[in-house]
C-alpha cells in the first residue's frame, strides 16, 4: 500500500515535531515514574510516546526514501533526455550520410548509362539478344519466391 498520499499533504515539519514529542514523551515517562502523583500516568504516557515515536520514525524513513528516489528519478530522466537528444542527432547524421551516398550512386549510374548510350549502342545492330537471355534476366529480377525454380521455358 502506498503512503505517498500522506506525505503529499502533511508538511515535513509535522513528522519532525512528532518525533521530538515522542522522544520527549519517552523521557518524561521515565521521570514521571519517580514523581508521586504523576506516576499513575506513566504507562499511558509511555505507550503514547512510543507509538508516536514509531510512527514518526516510520514516516522519517519514508520521507528519506522518497527524497532519494526522487533524486535518482531526476538523474535517470536527465540521462534519458540526453540519450533522446543524442539519438535524434545520430538519426540526422545517418540520414545525411545515406542521402549523400545515394546521390553519389545515382550520379555514377548516370555516368555509366551515358557510357552505354555512347559505346554499347554501336553494337545494337551486330548483336541480337536471344529471348532466353532476356527471360533469364527477368526471372532473376522478379524472382517470384512463391513459385519453384523455373525449368526450361518460363511462362
Amino acid at each position, binding site marked *: *500500500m*502506498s*503512503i*505517498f498520499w500522506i*506525505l503529499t499533504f502533511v508538511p515535513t515539519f509535522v513528522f519532525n515535531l512528532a518525533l521530538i514529542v515522542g522522544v520527549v514523551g519517552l523521557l518524561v515517562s521515565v521521570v514521571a515514574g519517580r514523581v508521586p502523583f504523576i506516576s499513575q500516568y506513566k504507562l499511558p504516557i509511555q505507550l503514547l510516546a*512510543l507509538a508516536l515515536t*514509531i510512527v514518526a*520514525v*516510520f*514516516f*522519517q*524513513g*519514508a520521507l528519506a*526514501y*522518497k527524497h532519494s*528516489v526522487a533524486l535518482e*528519478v531526476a538523474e*535517470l*530522466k536527465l*540521462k*534519458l533526455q*540526453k*540519450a*533522446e537528444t*543524442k*539519438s535524434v542527432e*545520430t*538519426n*540526422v547524421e*545517418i*540520414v545525411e*550520410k*545515406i*542521402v549523400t*551516398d*545515394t546521390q553519389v*550512386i*545515382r550520379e*555514377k*549510374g548516370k555516368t*555509366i*548509362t551515358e557510357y*552505354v*548510350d555512347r559505346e*554499347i*549502342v554501336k*553494337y*545494337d545492330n551486330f*548483336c541480337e*539478344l536471344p*529471348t532466353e*537471355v*532476356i527471360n533469364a*534476366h*527477368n526471372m532473376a*529480377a*522478379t524472382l517470384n519466391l512463391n513459385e519453384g525454380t523455373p525449368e526450361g521455358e518460363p511462362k
Partner: protein
Amino acid sequence: MKKLLILPLLVLSGCAVHVEPVTAKFPEAPATLLQKCEALKEVAKDASLSDFTKVVVENYILYHECSRKVEGWHEWYTKQKAIFEEATK
C-alpha cells in the same frame, strides 16, 4: 517491554513507498531507412543490347542504393544500442 523492541521493525515498511516509473522511449527510425527497396526492373522482350545493358546497370544501381540502406540500418542499430546502454547503465 522487550516485545516492544520488535515494533521498530515496522519502520522498514516505510521503504514500501510508490516509485515513479521511468521508461526509456524506443528511438524512432529515420524515414529514409523505412523506405522499401525498389523492385528490380525487367527488360522488354524486343530490347536491344544497349537497352538490356541499361536495365542491368539500373538494377545494379538499385542494388547499391538498397545495400546502402541496409548498412544504414546496421549503423543505426549499433549507435542507438550504444546510446541506450550508456543511458541505462
